[in-house]
């Protein structure tokens, strides 16, 4: 089989100039068989298994990078939702004992993050679910690599507003549990959480998964941005075609890496998550793609339509390229991690309300944004309920990763540094939804017919 110099150069150029990489390889690990009444025994078993598997993951990922010449940026693990694991443990400090073991295993193995400190409470919470929820501030405030999630709504079950109302208070404690509210950056509230998501903070190894599986998150905002910039005048039908072709190529690379890594580790290959995930690197930006499509700034009229076209093209190209597409598989628009999103908020082009509208066509929801530190628990809960309602009603995943920035007000800048970037603090509506949240109860599951 012959390849033209243009084809080889195209791939090399994506890596060299357009930030193309395999963003995350995430090894999902089942820990259910380790459950025990003694939390020390559970923690020891989890630490041993995760350290061993994590070390192999890091070594084999390096070998695959070396062999294929494709950079793998993050090596991660996800586990069985921790609320299930502590079900049999009556001991009060069981969550802390387990959390410390998980964090230590990640650190010792050299994996970047470990996800799964969470619970599925869309319909109701068990005693263990509640204990896990209450542990979130202490656990995420005192560990460095552990990430948490809660699934609070689903299209089949409706929405658990009691749990969301409680989460409003927990988020306030989380914001104060570590410097700059960083514990909140390691937590996502979901509707319709996928069980095979390789991306943090919301990765976990779901109940329908095998003992271990490799899930791959590709990344290509820089590649798509470049190809959109090369076609400034074509119509949107052609632009969709061009994006599809490009995403097809980068997804194929992700699939190759996933299969090769799974083979080397002797575990199942799960899915390729075809999300476009931006980083703080110059040009590696979903917002820049939208600008390249013809918007003066992200948030300008036309933004939701442009995003709908982008995400549709990403899904079509990616689905053609991989036998197993899963996870979140959408376009990420985290405020703090995308230079064009930060710019849009700062210049007044992008409001929280417009961002919410964008998430109606974009899978991942309101991501990595800051609100004033004095935002009330009820306001946080109402904000989360709104976003999860979009997911619930439209049968899609949505999530919220919000940081109530301690001591900050609208217009200030919360600077995390590094990969998490910096978030301009966004104003919330001054009007209250407190009474609505205080009603509690469950939103019934939506009707899936009579769709007008």
């Amino acid at each position, binding site marked *: *089989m*012959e*390849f*033209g*110099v*243009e*084809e*080889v*150069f*195209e*791939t*090399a150029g994506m*890596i*060299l100039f357009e930030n193309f990489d395999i963003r995350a390889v995430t090894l999902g690990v089942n820990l259910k068989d380790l459950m025990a009444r003694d939390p020390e025994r559970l923690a020891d078993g989890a630490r041993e298994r995760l350290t061993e598997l994590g070390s192999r993951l890091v070594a084999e990922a390096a070998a695959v990078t*070396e*062999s*294929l*010449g*494709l950079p793998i940026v993050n090596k991660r693990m996800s586990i069985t939702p921790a609320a299930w694991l502590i079900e049999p443990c009556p001991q009060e400090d069981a969550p802390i004992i387990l959390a410390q073991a998980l964090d230590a295993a990640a650190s010792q193995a050299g994996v970047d993050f470990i996800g799964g400190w969470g619970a599925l409470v869309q319909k109701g919470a068990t005693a263990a679910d509640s204990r896990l929820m209450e542990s979130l501030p202490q656990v995420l405030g005192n560990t460095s690599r552990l990430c948490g999630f809660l699934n609070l709504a689903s299209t089949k079950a409706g929405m658990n507003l009691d749990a969301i109302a409680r989460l409003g208070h927990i988020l306030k404690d989380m914001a104060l549990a570590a410097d700059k509210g960083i514990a909140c950056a390691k937590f996502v509230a979901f509707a319709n959480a996928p069980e095979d998501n390789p991306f943090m903070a919301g990765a976990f190894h779901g109940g329908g998964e095998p003992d271990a599986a490799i899930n791959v998150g590709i990344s290509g905002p820089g590649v798509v941005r470049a190809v959109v910039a090369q076609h400034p005048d074509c119509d949107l039908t052609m632009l969709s075609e061009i994006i599809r072709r490009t995403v097809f*190529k*980068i997804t*194929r*690379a992700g*699939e*190759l890496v996933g299969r*090769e890594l799974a083979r080397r580790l002797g575990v199942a290959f799960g899915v390729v998550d075809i999300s476009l995930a931006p980083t703080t690197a110059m040009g590696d930006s979903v917002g820049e793609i939208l600008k390249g499509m013809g918007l003066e700034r992200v948030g300008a009229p036309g933004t939701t339509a442009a995003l709908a076209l982008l995400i549709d093209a990403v899904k079509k190209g990616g689905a053609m390229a991989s036998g197993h597409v899963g996870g979140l598989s959408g376009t990420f628009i985290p405020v703090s991690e995308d230079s064009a999103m930060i710019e849009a908020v700062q210049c007044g082009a992008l409001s929280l309300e417009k961002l919410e509208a964008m998430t109606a066509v974009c899978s991942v929801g309101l991501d990595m944004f800051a609100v004033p530190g004095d935002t009330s628990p009820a306001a946080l809960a109402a904000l989360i309920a709104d976003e999860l309602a979009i997911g619930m009603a439209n049968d899609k995943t949505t999530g919220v990763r919000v940081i109530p920035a301690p001591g900050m007000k609208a217009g200030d800048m919360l600077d995390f540094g590094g990969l998490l970037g910096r978030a301009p603090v966004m104003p919330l509506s001054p009007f209250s939804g407190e009474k609505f949240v205080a009603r509690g109860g469950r939103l019934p599951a939506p009707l899936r017919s009579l769709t007008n």
Partner: protein
Amino acid sequence: MDKERVFVVVLGKDQKGIIARVATLCFDHGGNIEDVQQKVMDGTFVMTMLVDLSGEGCEPAVLRGALDELGAEMGLTVMVQNEAVIKAMHRV
């Protein structure tokens, strides 16, 4: 992956001896050169060399290191891309 073949991709300013020096390095490290192409694209000199590394005594990691050194010396960007990646991305 069946046969261990890689594309050595060289980008940069055209100069004397690029093909000769890259080819010599590949030969010295046990590689068998199966194809060479070059072109000037967008003002940049691009050369691709398809090298079979499945021969005895061939250490891909060592070759990669040596190519990096050569690239630094000549002011060129040198990448090694596995053929499997190019095949996956550009052929259905």
